[in-house]
């Protein structure tokens, strides 16, 4: 399964990258699985996630081609 992963704001600084392609060979992949793969840690509650530009949560099941974004709480315009 091929995924595009994006990071914003302080999380981009922490990850040292703004986006990457991730491939996972596994039947069922959730947002939590993906985060584990990119960070080697469980997904903290303080990190928000969007799949294909819609907010979702750690249990969300991904499909190939999804764009997954991780970011800190928004601070408004």
């Amino acid at each position, binding site marked *: 399964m091929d995924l595009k992963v994006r990071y914003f704001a302080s999380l981009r600084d922490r990850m040292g990258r703004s986006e990457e392609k991730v491939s996972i060979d596994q039947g069922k992949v959730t947002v939590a699985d993906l985060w584990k793969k990119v960070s080697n840690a469980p997904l903290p509650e303080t990190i928000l996630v*969007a799949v294909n*530009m819609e907010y979702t949560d750690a249990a969300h099941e991904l499909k190939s081609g999804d764009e997954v974004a991780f*970011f*800190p*709480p*928004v*601070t408004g*315009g």
Partner: protein
Amino acid sequence: MKVFITKDVLDPYKEILDYEKAALPPGKHGGVVSFVGTMRDFNDGQDVRAMNLDYYPGMTEHHIERVCQEAMNEWDVMDCLVAHRVGEMIPTDPIVLVAVWSAHRKDSFDACRYIINYLKESAPFWKCEVTTAGKKHWVEKNSEDPGVAKRVVRKSA
């Protein structure tokens, strides 16, 4: 309805006039309520020299458009315009413009306030401030106007 995000300096009142000319039938609306937010030179007691506003291209516009549509469904509004600055900016720069046209001003006020509350509190933007001491830091919490940002459509009397 028009929503746009730009890295360029924003000329909010020119945007209002240009959009009104292009999109509104002349002589039909009774008025326009606008909010123009400008960058302050302080935040949470600290002097701020510059700000970098990050956003999620695509998602940010999409979610703002959805909120504008919610406002247009909820109130009797003719049209609305949102312009938002991103990237590097300095104090006194206009950051955001919301303009709402309607036949009756009550609807414009309510809709404009609904949209700006969303933008200021819940839209996917992230502020990185540079203090006059040269320290750069990501703002962790938006402290302005607590309690009025509820993402709930509520009609005021």
